[in-house]
């Protein structure tokens, strides 16, 4: 009996504490089916899926989807590659490597909202040290976040600066807890290093990679702080991602219904993506541990 009940006893408190969130979540879903702008209280009405069907013909909505997905794809891919690279560089335990890995967490520790303020200063064409430095190597007229052609690059760069350490530290912890035997065996057999990396390291690291990527994905598709602080979604609509758009809809336009509908779409996208990841993760786990 105890054995049967134990897993529930262990996991339910967490669920119970969190389940409270489902109530406001449900309320928000309900809002999304309403014409509900706080500034038009008398116009509030149930409109079913109209908020959603309105999106279909709204080019701004499709732009938001495109920008969000592109942003997510770029940041997650680049951060994963860079984070993995750095984790491999720092793989060997030792005082120096450990210290470096902690120091590399510093960007993650500076709150993105404040860090973005500093990046805005550092990329300012007059006072910005980064503008100055790239001016020295010939990019005199680089306009960072304010030019449509470089805005995405700039925010992706800041995102990478902030969040690559997140992936790095998870993969480093993973790398260092891998069993040693397969590597020792491979070394004895003189297996080429690229083979070791692609056939041993990478597959064994895969569960960690998926966990790190999953969380990065969840955060990246919901990116707000950096983009809002750097460009507020501009120039034009170049960086208008979901959270920025729905933030504006809610806090500035007080359009609760539309904001909720927009966020519901984001929620569905996130749900589908993370479901894919978790399924894959579970499959890998199963393969790694067998059933016992």
């Amino acid at each position, binding site marked *: 009996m105890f054995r049967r009940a134990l897993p529930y006893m262990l996991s*339910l408190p*967490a669920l119970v*504490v969190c389940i409270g*969130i489902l109530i406001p979540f449900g309320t*928000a879903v309900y809002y999304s089916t309403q014409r509900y702008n706080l500034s038009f209280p008398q116009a509030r009405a149930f409109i079913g899926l109209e908020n959603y069907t309105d999106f279909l013909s709204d080019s701004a909505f499709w732009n938001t989807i495109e920008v969000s997905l592109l942003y997510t794809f770029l940041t997650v891919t680049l951060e994963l590659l860079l984070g993995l690279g750095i984790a491999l560089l720092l793989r060997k335990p030792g005082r120096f490597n450990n210290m470096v890995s902690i120091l*590399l967490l510093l960007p993650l*520790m500076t709150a993105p909202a404040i860090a973005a303020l500093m990046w805005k*200063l550092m990329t300012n064409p007059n006072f910005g040290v980064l503008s100055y430095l790239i001016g020295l190597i010939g990019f005199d007229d680089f306009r960072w976040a304010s030019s449509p052609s470089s805005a995405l690059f700039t925010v992706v760069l800041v995102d990478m600066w902030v969040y690559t350490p997140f992936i790095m530290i998870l993969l480093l912890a993973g790398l260092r807890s891998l069993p040693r035997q397969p590597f020792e065996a491979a070394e004895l057999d003189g297996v080429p290093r690229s083979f070791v990396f692609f056939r041993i390291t990478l597959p064994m690291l895969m569960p960690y990679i998926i*966990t790190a990527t999953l969380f990065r994905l969840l955060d990246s598709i919901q990116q707000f702080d950096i983009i809002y602080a750097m460009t507020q979604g501009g120039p034009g609509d170049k960086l208008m991602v979901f959270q920025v758009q729905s933030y504006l809809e809610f806090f500035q336009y007080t359009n609760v219904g539309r904001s909720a509908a927009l966020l519901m779409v984001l929620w569905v996208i996130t749900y589908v993506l993370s479901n894919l990841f978790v399924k894959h993760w*579970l499959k890998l786990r199963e393969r790694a541990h067998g059933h016992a």
Partner: protein
Amino acid sequence: MHHTSTAERILRGFLLTLVLLFFLFPIFWIFLMSFQTNEDILRIPPSLFFTPTLENYIALISGRLSTVAGDLDIAFMRNLWNSVLLSSLSVGVALILGVPAAYAFARFKFRLGENIAFTLLSFRFAPPLLVLLPLSLYFSELGLSDTYLGLVWVYQLIALPLILWIVRGYFEDISPDIENAYRIDGHSWATTFRKIAIPLARPGIAAASLLAFIFCWNNFVFALVLASADKQPVTVGALAFVTASGIQYGQVAAAIVLSVTPTLMLALYAQRYLVEGLSLGAVKG
């Protein structure tokens, strides 16, 4: 490991230098700015040379900020304290709730288990904005608005899924036989959990706690919407230097330095456990 040739070591060194430059130069620059007056910071072109001043730190720590418009009270240290309180309480609660749950998902295959796990993860991807308005309405009714309790609860949305999913992986990597052996030795389930499972998953718990702490620390929209000024974290506090009469960059920089310090200490402390992960060797069965 393979023997490293000289060329390879040079390449590694070079790559590491690039990495350090990219990630730490901005931090270094912010650190320098924290010792400069606004006038020094806003020089054209920017320069490495300046007369260092402690003014920014003094203003933050003493809570008095001298500006064009006279002396102002600032609550930065209070904000800092709020951040410490909110982040550590939230991570503490998330650990108490999340670690046992993570263990359950790792060790047992039970009905609805994966569903519960995924539901808990899904709290992470409910966009905070989506729940904030209804939440603030319910909070007023429940008397939770403007309480640390309410905030710590909402912070679970950030901390709990992270701890749950990272720690789960580490538990799964521990051979169940190690725990079985301990129980057969005569120890209860609870002792086994405490003496075997937790210590062996410590690298994961340390990493997850550190990351959860950082994410709680960096959040500000929850406290902003749900609490009054005396409970605002340092992220909101640092924005106070964005004043109508200009952005006090020196103080923002000093605020960043001060606000990073507790987290950095925590990371340095947690490092011991992060390193322990490898000294134990493979614990896989």
